[in-house]
């Protein structure tokens, strides 16, 4: 197990370098941060050159990358457009988005698996058809449309919830944004669980479990669900990164000042340190989640052993 973790961590290194380099090249080589500071006016050449020197932009791109990475590992992510340290922005933004992601993730996992299990156990019957139609509908309507419609009807017209998230983003305000963020993934989880449950319910071990007279509840939870959850866990793990990225849209609709909001500000103001810094952290979270999924396999399925 220990050796497996180390091998996986080592495999993550080139992927991390490649991904961050890709983002770095996109932002620094394709855009011009100095010209952006001056807006529509052409910058004075001497000032521009001095700024370039200050920001380490007068070196070849690979040196800029190494310079940037060196600073990141000492905790220096540079300064945002309004001269605040990027780490300060991260400190305020990440807890908010993390809360939103946790809410969305819980909704996605619990409701998704429950719906999928229901449909898978009643394959071909009314509940199954209903769940399939519902998931098809949810996947088809883009997140930002669902967001505005729910915000309009539940928040503005019927006053069921708050239309926007208040200061500090308390959990009760995050339920509606969480539902919106989770909606599409929830549908995928439900469909994946349904397929997996339907497949496994024909397995020999399940017939054995029923034949030896185990109570139905135990057969379903311990034998059927545990085995059916393996592909679902894979999806859930890779989806954590997707949820945090999807927050760009949800946070804009509900006026949440989290990672998506800061990232969007960084892009609007063409501030590379903010953009590259936030994306680097998100990529790290994404990679860590994938590692976690692989380790969870062994817990769910004892047949899988890591040497």
């Amino acid at each position, binding site marked *: 197990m220990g050796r497996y973790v180390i091998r996986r961590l080592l495999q993550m290194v080139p992927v991390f370098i490649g*991904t961050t380099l890709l983002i770095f090249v996109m932002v620094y080589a394709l855009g011009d941060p100095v010209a952006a500071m001056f807006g529509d006016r052409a910058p004075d050449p001497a000032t521009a050159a001095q700024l370039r020197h200050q920001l380490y932009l007068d070196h070849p791109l690979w040196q800029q990358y190494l310079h940037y990475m060196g600073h990141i590992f000492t905790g220096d992510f540079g300064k945002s457009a309004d001269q605040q340290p990027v780490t300060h922005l991260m400190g305020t933004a990440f807890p908010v988005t993390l809360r939103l992601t946790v809410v969305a993730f819980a909704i996605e996992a619990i409701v998704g698996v429950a719906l999928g299990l229901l449909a898978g156990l009643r394959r071909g019957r009314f509940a199954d058809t209903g769940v399939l139609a519902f998931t098809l509908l949810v996947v088809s309507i883009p997140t930002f449309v669902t967001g505005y419609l729910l915000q309009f009807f539940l928040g503005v017209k019927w006053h069921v919830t708050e239309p926007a998230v208040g200061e500090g983003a308390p959990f009760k305000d995050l339920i509606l944004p969480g539902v919106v963020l989770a909606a599409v993934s929830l549908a995928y989880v439900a469909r994946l669980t349904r397929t997996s449950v339907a497949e496994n319910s024909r397995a020999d071990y399940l017939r054995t479990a029923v034949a030896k007279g185990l109570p139905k509840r135990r057969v379903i939870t311990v034998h059927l669900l545990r085995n059916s959850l393996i592909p679902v866990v894979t999806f859930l793990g890779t989806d954590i990164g997707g949820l945090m990225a999807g927050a760009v849209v949800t946070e804009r609709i509900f006026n949440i000042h989290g990672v998506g909001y800061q990232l969007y500000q960084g892009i609007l103001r063409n501030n590379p340190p903010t953009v590259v810094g936030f994306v680097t952290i998100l990529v790290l979270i994404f990679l860590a989640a994938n590692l976690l999924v692989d380790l969870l396999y062994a817990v769910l399925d004892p047949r899988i052993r890591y040497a």
Partner: protein
Amino acid sequence: MPDTIPSAVTEAGTATTPDGLAVPGGEREKARSLWSDAWHDLSRKPMFYIAGVLILFLVVISLWPGLIAGGDPLNCDLANSQVGPKSGHPFGFDTQGCDVYTRTVFGARASVTVGILTTAGAALLGTFFGGLAGFLGGIWDSLISMLGNIFFGIPILLGGVVFLSVVKGGSVTTVSTFMILLGWPQIARIARGAVVTAKQQDYVQAAKALGASNSRMLLRHIAPNALAPIIVVSTIALGTYISLEATLSFLGVGLKPPAVSWGIDISAASDQIRNAPHMLLWPAGALSITVLAFIMLGDAVRDALDPKLR
């Protein structure tokens, strides 16, 4: 196997020909190949026909929007700003006084073009790299998989916002190119898995033993059998690509005016939802139905090609 057999379908079918020859007529049903079997299954599904008709309709109005909408989507009159439905303008007007019906019809082109271009590009690139990785194995497999993981490590929406905001193109080509760039690893993973599985089959080993060249093994024996999962994933992905284009346009980094796109119109309508909900509902409805049609098609194709759940 003789070279005169024209297509993959016939070749797969010949495996069971001896049965067909022994009992001609009634027993021929059994000799169906994967593809004709899938078609047989598809042609009995109402969902397939509903999706097919919708997609056909969308493609036709993308090519010739003038067929059902006479006006010009950029011909707007501020005097009509946010006016509701009236005679000749069934969907009303948006903030700029443009006819919502005309813009909704003309918006189909951007979505359908981006969806089809991206799917074709990602499928070609992904099949090529994934197939190569699976077929060659060893160091090439590791290298290509690592390259795929690097692109896979960036959530596609996040990468889209960063990349497209820097490139500032805003055309169908720019958006599609970017989506292909981040979309191909998904197809490559599927293609690699399918090729690895097909490579180990007895008939491929037999062809190898008979001295078939690499290209012959790939094109004649492996490709026809590895294609099914790629087609399934690509069809479903088409719907999500359309949704993604609209999301990027909504965020202001995808297509840009004067391009006519549902994402742009929904974005413009979103802060006017209290005053003029009709501005939001029509483009949003059109977008949802389009995505629904492609996902339904993908679902039907998957059920037909993946016999596991029958």
